[in-house]
């Protein structure tokens, strides 16, 4: 099976501080993969490395590679990566608050030049999110969090990606809205778009993805099919809040990991 994205032994550091160590992740073509991790695990660094904006924070790839279609992506400019079909839903939505919803969506197609195709994609996005057409001419900054996240996903889809990277889709949203968004991700995934969901909310991420990785202090500590991980005691203790003795279990695992 060919892979949409293959991260191989990636290490990243911000100056002397290492952020990722020997991380290997593979997203199969049309697959739905999630990366779990708590705060400071290196999730955001991972996304920055994939989308090529590491330089903004003066980060450096020290070893390893990110390959896509046999091409190393670590040296590419962000706009080349986007043109190559990787779109990102950034953490915290990052909409353009003073542009209307439609302008925000059209900004997502900044890497494309075919106006007719962009209009078609816009109609598709409006069909996918029936809540958005009535809000079309509203300023994005005035929308609710859930609507903003929909615009952010729609904006990423405007680039017609073959790989969608979602950074913390559930951040600051009500559980019901998060569920709806993940159902939509499922639908997008069924259309053949590979999804890489970077999530703190392990429960929902494991429900929807087929394969998952757990990132802890810059290293992959666990990986496996989502169904198996869901049953895994460690994962339950770490990310889902396990049974009564979860606190001790958590401490034990943290000790294990940090050793």
């Amino acid at each position, binding site marked *: 099976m060919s892979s949409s994205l293959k991260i191989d032994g990636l290490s990243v550091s911000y100056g002397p501080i290492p952020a990722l160590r020997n991380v290997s992740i593979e997203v199969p073509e049309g697959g739905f993969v999630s990366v779990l991790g708590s705060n400071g695990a290196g999730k955001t660094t991972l996304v920055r490395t994939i989308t090529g904006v590491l330089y903004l924070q003066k980060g450096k790839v020290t070893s390893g590679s990110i390959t896509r279609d046999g091409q190393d992506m670590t040296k590419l400019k*962000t706009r080349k990566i*986007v043109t190559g079909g990787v779109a990102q839903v950034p953490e915290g939505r*990052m909409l353009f608050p003073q542009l209307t919803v439609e302008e925000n969506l059209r900004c*997502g197609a900044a890497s494309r030049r075919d106006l007719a195709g962009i209009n078609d994609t816009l109609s*598709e996005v409006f069909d996918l999110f029936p809540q958005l*057409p009535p809000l079309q001419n509203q300023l994005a900054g005035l929308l609710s969090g859930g609507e903003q996240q929909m615009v952010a996903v729609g904006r990423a889809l405007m680039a017609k990606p073959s790989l969608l990277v979602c950074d913390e889709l559930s951040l600051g949203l009500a559980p019901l809205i998060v569920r709806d968004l993940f159902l939509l991700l499922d639908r997008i995934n069924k259309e053949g778009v590979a999804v890489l969901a970077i999530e703190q909310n392990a429960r929902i991420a494991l429900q929807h993805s087929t394969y998952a990785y757990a990132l802890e202090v810059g290293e992959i500590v666990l990986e496996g099919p989502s169904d198996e991980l869901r049953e895994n005691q460690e994962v339950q203790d770490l990310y889902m809040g396990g049974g009564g003795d979860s606190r001790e279990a958590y401490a034990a695992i943290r000790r294990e990991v940090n050793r």
Partner: protein
Amino acid sequence: MTSVTETATPASRQILAKRTPTWMRALPFLVAIASPVILDKISWNPFGGWKLLVGFLVLVGIGWFAWSNAEHDPDDPRLSLKLWHRADQRALAAVTCFVLMAIPFILSTDWEPPMDFPWNSWFRIVNYIILFALGAGAFNLLVGYTGQLSMAHAAFLMIGTMVGAQVGLIWEQSFWLCLPVAALAGAVLGVFFGIPALRLRGLYLMLATIGVHFIILLVWKEYIVHQFGFSGMRFTTPNLPSWLHWIPGINPEDGEFLINSQFRWFWVNLGITTVGLLFIVNVVRSREGRAFAAVRDRDISATLLGINVPRSKLVSFALSSALVSVSGCMLSYYNRARSEDSFHLELVLDYGIIIVVGGFMGIQGAIFGSIFFFALPMYFEWMREELPIISDIDFFSRYAGEIDLAIRGILVVVVLVWRPDGLAGLWQAMKKRALLRMQAPRRGVVQ
């Protein structure tokens, strides 16, 4: 992502409006544009009794025709990319077109308004408004749309003037050649002086561009002293090229048609400003323009979407300074004389006041702001001299300039507190309200 769902287009998004032929939609605009010829033929003085009424009826007729023949579908995503697609926008555009065409004819009548209202000197004000609207629109493209706070725009007025002087006076080429050369020089230097914007932002960029202003000021002083001496530049009167003499209303005296009166300058200024402002409007609606706004709102997010942020900034600098240079060249030819200290740093503040008061978003802001900026002092002057009680107060006439500035400053504060989106925002809100009121009874009948 291929087509996500196979559901048919919702009924709300099908085109509902009736199709009208293009010529019918263009007709009000054509009538408005043709009106000066007719006005010229009948030597129209609107203040001769019934003529004012006829003029008003024509105005309303043109607006109504444009309104009723506009195609409008609020939910078609493609329509929002079009300029003036809504009925009210089309009607207003046609009316504005007609009014602009009528202004010079109305202003050149020898009508004597009551209380010695300075009728003729308004022509100069109108010309300044038009010229500054172009510069302010270009300034807004950079500051309002791209969010790059630049103080170098007085410098680009100097560059435009220097190009105009070099090409028009020293190389003795036509005025019409000066404009594209000024645009080109402005664009190239704009890119060059925009390079600091790649690393600096906000107040730091502002300080860097103040530096640019003083560098160019030095060049300007050297240039003017070496080429023209201490008396400064005196610009020649441009003339219309002979291949344009077919235009109705133009009767060349002894073979050349000089742009030597306010009336003639009005058409030149209006034409070039309209082209310039329409250019800005179109840039802003385009992919490039959305990239500008994206860079302004969140440049990291813009990077993530594949927007080339440095390029967007430089393109914005280039377009803005090209248009400001053109307006500088035109201002100098219109003003006829320029000396060493014609362009001071405060000119940028003037542009700043214009776009802040007018409103940052949209080109309307530049136009409303220019009207505010130039019409108010004129109006105050008249009040000081003619209004019964005010003209008696000696204090007002003794500190005329200071009081003008103070009132202008207070009004800026009032506008900003009351309406942070400026006069353009006020206008939009008024328009929205009027439209709602117009549609309210109809909605009750239909549904």
